[in-house]
């Protein structure tokens, strides 16, 4: 099997650069605004879009993404909106994945959820609160519909644990750069570089670094050692702070353009 995401990482590897992955919650800043944001990010040259499934109890997320999820949930965002956002991304010609806490998948139906990801052009799903031990049913479904199950590893993960987790992963390994929740930070922790090299010794899968990246300089630095750079809260902050939806879209386009350049300057 080969997903758009798999093909993307083959492409960037051939171009000797890292991929830029942008995160946006479905239904944020509005149902329609999310689709416009995806189009703007794709037009600015972002390689892949990570669609967040807003959830009532996001324990891995800092205040920025919590606020975006609250706004989205108040607007009534549901699974159908998540799949529509995926469809928008694939229509824009970029690879797309969903990031979701486990309960919405379980409630929707594990098999049905994987099927809907595939049918809407999605490449895979990042499940930040689903350890591999609880994944038996999920891995059957991702295998059946040929989508990538993407797992997170953390600086606290032992080498043995990294081996186990990456053996169940496809698409890319999500390396959480720091011990903590999502949110823009002034520097990317030194833990990230160390974690990526520990993951490299266990797998040949692409490795993308998330948590805390917000600037061109940080993107360049991370692109020096990782295969992908994930940026979320920095885009969301711009959309939250914008005085109008158009200003917000302009602001994320400008940041995306900077980051797109950054991931090409890393090596």
């Amino acid at each position, binding site marked *: 099997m080969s997903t758009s995401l798999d093909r993307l990482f083959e492409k960037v590897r051939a171009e000797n650069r890292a991929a830029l992955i942008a995160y946006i919650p479905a239904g944020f800043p509005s149902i329609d605004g999310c689709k416009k944001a995806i189009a703007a990010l794709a037009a600015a040259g972002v390689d892949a879009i990570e669609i967040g499934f807003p959830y009532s*109890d996001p*324990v891995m997320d800092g205040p920025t993404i919590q606020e975006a999820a609250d706004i989205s949930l108040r607007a009534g965002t549901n699974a159908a909106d998540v799949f529509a956002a995926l469809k928008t991304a694939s229509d824009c010609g970029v690879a797309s994945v969903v990031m979701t806490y486990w*309960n919405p998948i*379980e*409630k929707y139906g594990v098999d049905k959820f994987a099927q809907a990801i595939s049918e809407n052009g999605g490449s895979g799903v990042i499940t930040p609160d689903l350890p591999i*031990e*609880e994944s038996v049913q999920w891995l059957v479904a991702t295998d059946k519909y040929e989508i990538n199950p993407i797992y997170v590893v953390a600086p606290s993960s032992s080498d043995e644990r990294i081996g186990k987790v990456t053996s169940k992963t496809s698409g890319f390994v999500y390396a*959480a750069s720091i011990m903590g929740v999502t949110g823009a930070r002034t520097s990317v922790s030194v833990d990230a570089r160390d974690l990526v090299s520990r993951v490299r010794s266990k797998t040949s899968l692409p490795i993308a670094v998330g948590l805390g990246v917000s600037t061109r300089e940080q993107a360049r630095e991370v692109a020096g050692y990782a295969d992908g750079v994930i940026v979320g809260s920095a885009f969301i902050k711009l959309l939250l702070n914008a005085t109008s939806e158009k200003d917000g879209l302009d602001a994320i386009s400008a940041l995306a353009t900077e980051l797109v350049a950054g991931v090409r300057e890393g090596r």
Partner: protein
Amino acid sequence: MIVETNALDGHFGEYGGRFVPEALIGALNELEAAHISSQKDPVFLAELAQLHRTYTGRPSIITEVPRFAAHAGGARILLKREDLNHTGSHKINNVLGQALLTKRMGKKRIIAETGAGQHGVASATAAALMGLECVVYMGEEDTRRQSLNVARMKLLGAQVVPVTSGSRTLKDAINEAMRDWVTNVADTHYLLGTVAGPHPFPTMVRDFHKIIGEESREQVLALTGKLPDAVLACVGGGSNAIGIFHAFIPDAGVRLIGFEAGGDGVETGRHAATISGGSPGVLHGTRSYVLQDENGQTVESHSISAGLDYPGVGPEHAYLHDIGRAEYRAINDDQAMEAFSLLCTTEGVIPAIETAHALAGAMIIGKEVGPDATLLINLSGRGDKDVQTAAQYFGIPL
């Protein structure tokens, strides 16, 4: 009837398990190992037993309440007096155990969530006793409703952080505590206050509370010469209920009955009766019954009792329910307050409003089973903290 509820991998049938960020897996493994080794370590067990004798005030007594029982079909009713423990509830049993484990793991800081403030006060107490730094997360809404307990925690040296995200209640306090833990896991132990959360918490917290059932089983046998016909407890997260149920699980003739918070009535949707009115799902790291909507989003719970006002429940209760070993019923706010008042005026005991749900349950069950039956109720907490709420409810000017 043999019921295996001590699964080593942290599952109770299809419930339990671990649904947490990868960053916490190492800490949960460390905690599980520390718990297992401590339960086999005579020095640890002796230290905890000594603390319970000289600090908690264990064993707690049982009290027979005939004047109250006259309103419950004349059944013989015995109360297990966890309200007489230091800090006023069963919570201290778990808190002292986990605080000792924190020291055993070489950690210096504990964090805790609290709704009504009882677990926060107990955690702050244990932290003061053992010289640990303590941060308590509490929904901003609850800090206003329970300002006296906020002051108690501060007097005990804890830092209280009001949580302003989400619904600003217990569930959001747990989210914030989890975020703190993910960030500071290297030197911090999350002292979770109930039998929910990721493995090993449901098993470990139960192990620290099962002393309630072990003591009362002996006490009831000594007093009456037989086992009780039913054991009753209120259920929010479910720690006091599991504590008193556990020793009786192998006794097939003993009914185990949990009473959830029915709020305005389960049919109104404004309740916290997770098993009676919820469905299987994952919340706060464990699979169990959850109050959720059709998209898997958690629904806010409602109860006059802050300690039961939680949209989840411990996974072992979900399992005991599904296999039919325990029964769960909902008691609405008014029923609970009627029983609260009745215990005050017939027996001179002011119970916690949480506990009043079990007392209201006894008034129903007593009439069903008749005067020959013996009911054992876990009187899990005292009502000092609820004086303001109760005065307001009964129209007593303050």
